[in-house]
């Protein structure tokens, strides 16, 4: 008897199939795949890709639900519990906050905090000492902000909203 288990691999394959469905929802707006005389139109490749992604997605979904998956446990950190989940969430959260703050408070303030907090996370994970990680990260934040300004604005003449507003 085949056992079907909905695991994380299957969940990700389902996510890709859902994304493909969103993509497919736009295809009717492009008209029919072949115009007169058999000439392929703007919908031709998207239709072919969409069909292929459904087939591949369903195949991966089926395989992942029926296969016996022995996932290796993620390597554990000595300092940050559940690092495999927490780490990417910290990076994502900090980067989202940075992108929100960047146009409002400008390059200097937002980058200094972003680099400081990003550095704090990596330093704390490495050393396990918050005090040690904190002072290193303050220096790192200032240095990285200055480095970015020198490189982007001074050396390559690119524009940055330095003070925001």
């Amino acid at each position, binding site marked *: 008897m085949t056992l079907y288990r909905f695991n*994380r*691999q299957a969940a990700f394959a389902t*996510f*890709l199939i859902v994304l*493909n469905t969103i*993509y497919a929802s*736009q295809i009717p707006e*492009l008209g029919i795949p*072949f115009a007169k*005389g*058999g*000439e*392929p*139109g*703007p919908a031709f*490749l*998207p239709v072919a*890709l*969409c069909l292929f*992604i459904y087939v*591949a*997605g369903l*195949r*991966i979904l089926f*395989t992942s639900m029926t296969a016996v998956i022995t996932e290796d446990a993620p*390597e*554990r950190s*000595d300092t940050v519990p559940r*690092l*495999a989940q927490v*780490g*990417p969430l910290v*990076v*994502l959260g*900090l*980067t*989202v906050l940075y*992108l929100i703050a*960047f146009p409002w408070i400008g390059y200097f303030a937002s*980058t200094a905090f972003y*680099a*400081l907090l*990003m*550095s*704090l*996370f*990596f330093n704390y*994970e490495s050393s396990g000492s918050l005090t040690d990680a904190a002072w*290193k990260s303050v220096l*790192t934040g200032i*240095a*990285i*902000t200055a*480095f970015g300004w020198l490189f*982007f604005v001074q050396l*390559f*003449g*690119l*524009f*940055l909203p330095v003070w925001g507003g």
Partner: protein
Amino acid sequence: MLADLGGGFVTLLQPMTFLFLVGGFLLGLFFGAIPGLTATLAIAILLPFTFGMEVTQALVMVMGIYMAGIYAGSITGITVNIPGAPSGVMTSYEGYAMMQRGEGPRALGLSAFASVIGGLVGAVLLMFLAEPISRVALLFQTPDKFSLVVLAIVTVTIVSSGSLWKASMAMALGLAISTVGIDPMVPVGRFDFDSYYLVEGITLLPAVIGLFAICELFVQSSTPSRIAFGEAPEVHKRLGPRDFIPSGADLRTVGAATYAKSSVIGVLIGMLPGGGASMASFIAYAEAKRGARNPEEYGKGSIQGLSASEAANNAMCGGAIVPLLTIGIPGDAVTAIIFGVFLIHGLVPGPGLLANNFDVVAPMFAALVVASLLIFVSVLLFGPLYMRLARINRGILYGVIAMVSVVGVYASTYSMFQMWMALAIGAFAFGLRRFGYPLLPLLMGIILGPYFEEFLRRSLIVSEGSPLIFLTQPFSLLFLVMTAVFVWLLRIGPARRARAGLRE
């Protein structure tokens, strides 16, 4: 042609241009040597800066990164058994065994010397092959170009490790992403969801930064530092440049034939789409072992195995540039990003580029030669430092990468939307990587997608919808046959042998 090539060297001697080469070389050394960072990542985060550079300086800098990055992948492989890049795996295998015997400097010196030989052979063959191949490429018609793109994307997909379905899915997703925006043949917006930001499509810059830089941040944030960097190496304080110069006896033991054969293997594999430095180094290593007088030494610190692997992976650099410049098809992630550097400066890689803009390309060739020589200079200057390179502070490293990645996208596009797009692609790529979907087919799909679609539709318009046009054109047929042969050799054949082995 020789005069043009000479002109390339003269351009390279201009102080600013040479400075860009040295800067790129040092950046490549650094990124290649740090586990988790690669030459691909270095070139990806350099991409925004190239907006502010002259095209020659940008290309010269990229060549410096490429050559140094591939070489440096072996440094931490030798010193701490963690290759900075996948191409350094075989070198680590032999080099770390030497390191454990207290022969680290000898291993680093031999690795650098082999990289110089490989890099020079690759660069010289590139110079002599580029023009004849591009002359043939000028004869290609639209169906031929379509079949060539098919060859590239199919080969890149089938050589990806892991599930073929997942690699194919990644390629299809890349092609689907490339369809967002204005249709290449008729002025119709596609998949823009009525957003004017999406009308211009998903551009290369946020795609590259997202796929390689931001995705790497996610990966590193989920990796404990003791796993990422390994145990700190023993620090050798009294080493000098002489300790890193290979002895004549060692060079004779390796043998000119090993250097030559491995370098040619590297160039040939570099020319194949999806070949890459790792494959070059594996095959050259296997070939060296097959023909070795003392194959039992392999795996225990064989200087011949180490040299074969290193010569091949640096020779690959020149080989990988050949299809990019001559037919406009990138074969791996680095050349795909170099393709982007050309596009950013309004140049389209392909036979026309060599015919009309050889003055732009010649310094690139010269840069590959000089960067190869710089490898040996670097091991003499920085050899003692290499022993400590894996100890760099992660907070500084990933703080810089995070800032440069995100700010770089803004500085190049002045668009907050593109910054959000890079983050979204990075998070999506992290999901793909975590669940075993390779990223290279995805990138190749994004880059080659517009060409794939345009050549396909143009061909079908000419043939009034008949796909037989791809079989009646000689070059097109040749590329399709090559595609079928590669699929057989690289996927079907090994799978049949594996099944037959299981039955026995």
